[in-house]
């Protein structure tokens, strides 16, 4: 298990024990993180599983991938840490990861 902390827009922190091999989105949904809507089920077609990776973790999670770009662009979200959580696969290296969630996924 890998510890991941989600920080809501009101500052509330929720820590989940994530399963490696699954996406961060799948872990978030299973862990009850309401801010992750993920209406397309993890196919990078909806942009409703956005998270903001805190700066110290960005080198580990990596940059936005090509598959994420259209929906992030469509969302109008320009946070420097923005990623689609469905495209971040949880690995042991992410133990301790901290991400923030947006006020709205719309």
């Amino acid at each position, binding site marked *: 298990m890998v510890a991941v902390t989600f920080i809501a827009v009101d500052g509330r922190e929720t820590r989940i024990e994530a399963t490696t091999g699954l996406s961060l989105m799948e872990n978030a949904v299973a862990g009850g993180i309401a801010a992750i809507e993920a209406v397309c089920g993890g196919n990078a*077609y909806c942009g409703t599983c956005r998270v903001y990776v805190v700066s110290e973790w960005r080198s580990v999670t990596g940059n936005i991938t090509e598959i994420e770009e259209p929906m992030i662009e469509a969302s109008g979200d320009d946070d420097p840490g923005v990623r689609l959580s469905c495209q971040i696969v949880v690995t042991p290296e992410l133990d301790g990861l901290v991400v923030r969630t947006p006020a709205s996924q*719309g």
Partner: protein
Amino acid sequence: MTTTAQAAAPACPAHSGRDDRKSARIAEANLKPADGARIIRSFAASREILRSTRVRQAGASAEVVDLSRPDEISFFFLDGDVHRKRRAAVAGLFAPRTIATRHRAVMDRTMDTIVAKLQERGSAPLDELSWQMAVDVAAEIVGLTNSDSNANLARRVKAVLESSITRKPGFFNGLLFNARMLVHVGRFWKHDLAPAVAARRHQPRDDVITHMVQADYSRKGMIMECLSYGGAGMMTTREFIVMAAWHLFEKQPLRERFLSGSEEDQIAILEEILRLEPVASMLHRRAAEPLAGPAGMALAEGETACVSIREANVDEAITGPCPFEIDPDRAKRMKVAGPYLSFGDGPHRCPGAQVALHETRLFLDRLLRLPGIRLTAEPRVLWNAQIQGYELRGAVVACDPS
């Protein structure tokens, strides 16, 4: 971590009791999986197949489509990188933010017209009203906005789609090689698509046709893409709106909850109805290479799987108890995406899923608030062999005159 399979649902006093499905019987009698296909019934295995990069589109004549000219075939038949790029290029048109900021206006405008027409006439066939909504919204997103009228556009699109019914099963395959189809497709091109293309060359907009013009699609490619995005969206949403309305007219507590609920709750209700009444019932995939997934699903190379959406959506491992009952809180309780597999899953998941849910929500929210609104005739449940899905005809709604 809590897994979906472990989540507990409230005890059901009448497990295996109520069955709210209206389309199950006709589906059971008419569904025809592809010859030799292995039927997949569990949710986990179905999702694993649909999400796999090792499978390819199958069924719906996919096996006989010439993939050597991807520019001339619908995105529906493509796989892998070329498919992803085609989808990604227009994905923003279907994003929640785009729906809220742009498509909502079309939905509101169309609903104003529908309400005025209904209040003036006193009653109207429900599928006519839902068809108008589905056509107007799809036309706007695709960019088919230079036709003489949306009513005529709808007739021409319908003619193309219904012509396919006289052919062997399979909508897309052979479209351009069937003489009867050529007439209808020719009319669609002349009266709808060509004017839109000419207009977009002069003044680009943010729609599918503008993208195709800028990407230099061929005429065939444009026709196929428009019919895929537009036609599929029109036909399926038309049916779902009527189905959801039927349930809500029939179930007063559900209707009251719908009318007093937030948009989020309204969507949850619609998704739960759709779970039990998916418009598309089966999806076929062929394994391009051996598949062995973590959920235990295994396919041999070349093997075809028929994902039974109806069965996967009532798999108790993911629904909890009483899978045949409408329970709008189910998905949240089970921590699963609301529509389950009703819009498919994986790379080919329905691009217009959110659009369909939002236009249905808005349509029903406005309709059900009309003074004196009632369902005066229930629909007949028919079967469309072409899309292997139900059709609802004959429903009539009435309201107090304005």
